[in-house]
């Protein structure tokens, strides 16, 4: 089960994930990111505090957009991940490519510093 909400602010957009991302619903996540990308925000945040589990297929979705973010010079941050989910990112090495932050404040601070 996965539900995705969008919250649009003036300078950034936040995707709020709730539930689990696995092979069966990773397409939904993919569609959402594609849509958000088309909105031309310079900063995209993902609120992963409600995320219980992410499978390799889910990680694959984030991974597949890294190049797009780089090309379009978009800042992409994930915040609020539980230790367990963050560990999954860490083991794969994705935390070296995607900025992970503990909470929204930290995430916003990182943006402003940049």
């Amino acid at each position, binding site marked *: 089960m996965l539900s995705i909400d969008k919250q649009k602010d003036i300078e950034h957009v936040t995707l709020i994930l709730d539930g689990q991302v696995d092979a069966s619903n990773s397409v939904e996540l993919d569609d959402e990111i594609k849509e958000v990308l088309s909105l031309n925000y310079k900063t995209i945040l993902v609120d992963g505090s409600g995320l219980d589990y992410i499978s390799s*297929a889910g990680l694959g979705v984030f991974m597949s957009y890294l190049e797009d973010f780089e090309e379009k010079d978009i800042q992409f941050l994930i915040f609020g991940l539980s230790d367990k989910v963050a560990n999954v990112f860490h*083991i794969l*090495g994705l935390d070296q490519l995607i900025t992970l932050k503990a909470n929204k404040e930290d995430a916003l601070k990182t943006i402003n510093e940049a």
Partner: protein
Amino acid sequence: MVKLPNINIGKIILLVSMLTWLGLLFVDLLRLFGKVNQMNLGIAEEITYTLEIIFFILVYLFYSRSIELNENNNFIQLIWRAASTGMMALGTSLLTRVFYIILGNTRLSTDPLLANFFYHVNFGMITIFLISCTLLWKKLILYQKNKNIVQQWQIYEVMLLVSMFYVYFNKNSFGSTFLFGLLLLLILGIILSVNLKWIPYLTFKDKWKSILFFFIILVTGTFLFFQVLGYDNSSYIIVSLTDNLFLLGLFGFVITYSLFSLLVTLFNLPTSSVFEQKLTEAINFQKLSQSIQPGQNETQVLDILMDSCMSAAYADAAWLEIMDDDKNFQTLHQRFITNQTRKEVRELIQKSKSFSEYLNQLSQTSQDYANGFIEHELYKSALIIPIWVNKTLLGNIFLLKEVKNGFNKEMLNIMVTFVGQASISVENHRLLNQAIRNERYKEELKIAQRVQRSLLPSELHHNKDFDIVGFSEAADEVGGDYYETFQFDNHRFALIIGDVSGKGTSAAFNMSQMKGVFHSLVQLDLSPKEFLTRANNALSRCLAKNHFITTTYYVLDTDKKSISFSRAGHCPTLYYSKELNQSSFVSLEGMGLGIVRNRKYPNYLHERTIQYVSGDIMVMYTDGIVESKNQNGEEFGYDRLKEVLNQNKENQPEMIKNNIIQSVYDFVGKSALPDDDYSLMVIKFN
């Protein structure tokens, strides 16, 4: 052994009965000869009676056999057989009369011996006619028999048998007991004669035929009956053969049954079309309900449906429109209507508000049909029945009649049932085809599974310095886990374990690519980091954008007692150190293959070498193990895995592997299906 010749019992009975008849003739003629010449030859009447009874019984047996053997008689053939036998008896009788007319007043015409001969001939024919009719009627009466009717018939047969022997007691005189016996036979005959269940099954034409045949039988029977009565006063008959309770009883039965049948058939004529219609409907229904054979198509069922509906409604014209894939209607079947007229009527229907509204509805409603009036020069009423299969519209049947209000409730009910049945047939057909397709896919997957299993090694390379075991199980038929070993020389080995992102078929394809990459690169004897860098280069060109592979590559040297490895995003290796007497996960930074597809990739890779001692254990696994969940959604996790290894530190690799798998299964619970692929390699150093 003497082989008995193949005796035809029917022919023997026929022969014996003819001989009996000749005997009867001879005895009677002899007696008459004695009387004429005023000699008493002392021939008792009982001889005649006995021969007569034997003759009756033989004829009865002969016909009984002959009718039984002829199984595929239909009703009309049976009745025709009776009528033709009757005509033969009638013909014989009439020919005798003609013969006497020709003789005129010659001396021969008053010859008692000749007269007696003809009397015997006619007696024989009458007997044959009556007995054959009785047995044919038996067949008709016992059509759709039940126990009661069979019992009644058996009683009647016994009574007929008794009546044959009655002749011994009363010498053929009409007494009150004779009349009583006759009455009894008649009453039972009438009771049996109400069994006329075969009549409705005749077609209209056959009914007319049977009326004709019964008429012939009645005329014949009546004529012969009066002829028999006429014999009474003849001087040449000393011992009467025909004033017999059995024969008279049969007369009564044959004539009664013929009369009943004639009348009932006659009164059935007007309603026979209704019965035929119902029968056709039943047959149509059966045809529709037979599922379509694989390989045939739905058109046949729709064809039968069209015919069934048309005959049920007595429709004058009809056509069937089928919705094609683009939601357009195509005319599939067309009956008794030209393309031109069909287009005209279709336009009229489109203009009519009630019809077009009905046709435009998108989902199935409680209204099963649209019935109404159209203003066409030829057709006055129209009916539309939609065919819904599995909640989607298959098409519409259009039926037209030349009269107003041509479709009544009964017709509509039957047609709706027909359509319902046809829909079920079509649906079953589709489901069957789907099931066959699914079965084929399953077979294909089984083949894929076999092929994929063969990609995993059955033997792992090792030498006396270490033992190694492997295990892999896929969540679906095929999976994306991979492990393999390679031996460079007698002391150096390569080990790899990997997990392809996603699961199922796509993962399985990528896994086989991984295997190819491994076998190509391992030949080069590279350092772990270099190996993974090149593997990343290769796979970056092979994997889809959102796919990646995690792996750890190890180079083991048993001379140096060292393990060098590099981790590409794969789960950290679990290592039991004998010296520290504890298990831990070996930490090392890394990055999955296919995530960074450029020159920067090596920057994310690291290499580490550890020295092992005897008793150390290394467990390589995939994330399916640590991420397997129990019913509460809790993961097996790293700590439990570590704990299991600690408990099994003294065991051999095989045992360690089994215990890890067992504890994962125990944790997940028996009922749960594996959610991800599990793989495991265990090494213990000696």
